């Protein structure tokens, strides 16, 4: 009977009977998934993310009020009223508002809940856009080489020469304030990072034998690029993107905080925080909760991204730098 050792799924190194091995176990994706699940930070990040996605999907069910509904005349409350939670001693005859009331007499909790939708949407769309444009540019630069490579990458260098938030501010000022323009600005600012990642991996593999083989078999450049080369850049791209979403959410919130991104009454955490920033001494809850919400969301993507990086990049895992 043949025995083999299976280092990843069987760390104790005990021999396993070959007949018992389920070959599906060894697929690249399953191995990676298992490695990811062994990363503490990835699991924590993924759990928070799953929770946030559920909150975003079921927002109308969780939120007690419409996020844009002004409650003047409907309930006996005043603007910027402190949180009222019944189990913490708030009189039961008063309406419950667990995160208080905002400056326009709306339920803060409902706004924070609906804000999850906006932030996740921002993170995914901006980075999605940046990846599509960035990786195309990076792939073209890496594959074509020569002056095309030089021109594309020097342009990327120029974009990278500006601190990203400042460039985003400048772009929004050209396009005009608003969530859509803020998204576009953040996406543009992020393009060079993905271009670099993809270009690097294209350069790594484009001269390898299997690529030359495809070429000599008469495959078209597009086929070689998209089928043979680009899949190799997926792992670093996924890691970069997860961490990138975290940054994009922070940047978008900062733009909205400055009044350049999402406009009222959209329940966006950054603009909620920015709108009430001068009331921090009188109504701290209106600053506290949106900030915590931003932090938890960004933290989730950061933890997941870190875990992914450690799981996907075996060089790091071997050196024992996983968290």
């Amino acid at each position, binding site marked *: 009977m043949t025995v083999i050792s299976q280092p990843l799924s069987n760390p104790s190194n005990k021999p396993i009977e070959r007949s018992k091995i389920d070959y599906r176990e060894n697929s690249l994706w399953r191995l990676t998934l298992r490695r990811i699940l062994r990363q503490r930070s990835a699991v924590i990040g993924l759990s928070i993310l799953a929770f946030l996605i559920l909150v975003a999907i079921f927002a109308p069910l969780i939120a007690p009020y419409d996020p844009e509904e002004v409650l003047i005349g409907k309930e006996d409350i005043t603007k910027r009223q402190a949180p009222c939670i019944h189990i913490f001693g708030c009189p039961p005859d008063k309406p419950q508002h667990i995160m208080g009331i905002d400056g326009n007499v709306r339920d803060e909790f409902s706004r924070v809940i609906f804000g999850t939708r906006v932030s996740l949407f921002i993170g995914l769309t901006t980075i999605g856009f940046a990846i599509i444009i960035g990786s195309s540019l990076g792939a073209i630069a890496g594959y074509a080489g020569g002056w095309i490579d030089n021109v594309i990458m020097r342009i990327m260098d120029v974009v990278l020469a*500006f601190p*990203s938030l400042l460039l985003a501010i*400048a772009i929004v000022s050209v396009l005009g304030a608003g969530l859509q323009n803020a998204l576009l600005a953040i996406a543009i600012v992020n393009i060079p990072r993905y271009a670099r990642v993809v270009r690097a991996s294209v350069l790594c593999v484009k001269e390898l034998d299997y690529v030359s083989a495809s070429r000599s078999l008469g495959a078209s450049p597009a086929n070689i690029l998209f089928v043979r080369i680009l899949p190799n850049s997926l792992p670093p791209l996924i890691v970069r993107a997860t961490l990138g979403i975290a940054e994009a959410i922070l940047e978008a919130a900062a733009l909205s905080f400055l009044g350049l991104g999402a406009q009222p009454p959209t329940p966006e955490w*950054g603009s909620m925080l920015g709108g009430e920033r001068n009331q*921090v001494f009188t109504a701290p809850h209106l600053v506290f909760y949106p*900030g915590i919400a931003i*932090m*938890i969301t960004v933290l989730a993507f*950061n933890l997941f991204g870190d875990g992914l990086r450690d799981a996907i990049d075996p060089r790091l895992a071997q050196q024992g730098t996983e968290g």
Partner: protein
Amino acid sequence: MTNYLLRRILLAIPVLLGILIVTFTLARMIPGDPCKAILGEKATKVVCDRFMEEKGFNKPIYIQLGIYMNEMIHGDFGDSIRYSRPVTLILMERLPMTIELGIFAIILATIIGIPLGIISAIKRNSIIDVITMVIANVGVSMPVYWLGLMLAYIFALQLKGTPLWLPPSGRLTSGLTSIPFYQVYGWAISKGSATSYIYEFISNLYIFNAIITGQWMVLGDTIKHLILPVVALSTIPMSITARMTRSSMLEVLGQDYVRTARAKGLFESVVILKHALRNALLPVVTIIGLELGNIFAGAVLTETIFGLAGVGRMLFEAITARDYPIVQAFTLVIAIGYVMMNLIVDVSYAFIDPRIKLE
């Protein structure tokens, strides 16, 4: 070494040219008629035509770009529309604030971040490590303006009346003024000259100015006003430094020469500080350098929160007020600062790591 330096500087030139083109394009693309923006809505067609002729706005775009580049290269940033004063002068007044803020933030981030990273790496998986890494992860995920507001709430409101109270905004308590050193020493300066700009710059570094002129009240007050913004601005670089130091230390601690050093019977402190740390610092230096460049972006938010008249806030106000000359000049200065930082980081490799031969 000289060759490398030269090549590295030459490579930065196309990037700087690109930055010039980008700032030019962005400023030209800001919506609105430049004549109306500068001379006001009531400007007549004749006045506007003369203005466009004077400023070269009616020339082909590439000639405009040429004029603009020529002005920038000669350091002529023009006059601010809103303040009707030379942009260079405004820059000299605002830049020192941001530099003070940025330098202290980076120093704080380094002196706390590196030791935390080392301790985490040595005591890997201990409770200290877990706590440090949780704090570091939370630190990079926190919006800096939120932290700033929360710090202001705690230290300026909740701790009011205690010795821990800190002012929530401004550079100095009202009533106190920082007297420029050239006035203290009675040096005469001619307005508008290059020296006067340099004097202005130095005297706006309040801490430095206070030390050289012995204005101890002002010094104490400035420092008190700087604490909260510096803490807020330093959280992200501090967290990044701690994480980077930890992973870099862990990598180095697994190397053969560290084992050899231990096998020789060296004290653990010698192994850690002399053998491991020095090698682990290389990537950390890179990160700190890059973070220094990012400080400007953080400064926009920190200065807004704490009501500080620095470059970041000025730029933001100029953008919203369509003050093109300030937007162009400030973006340019910040981007150049950023490129220079990258250059310094690259070159500093050679000095930190003798293994790297930069030929």
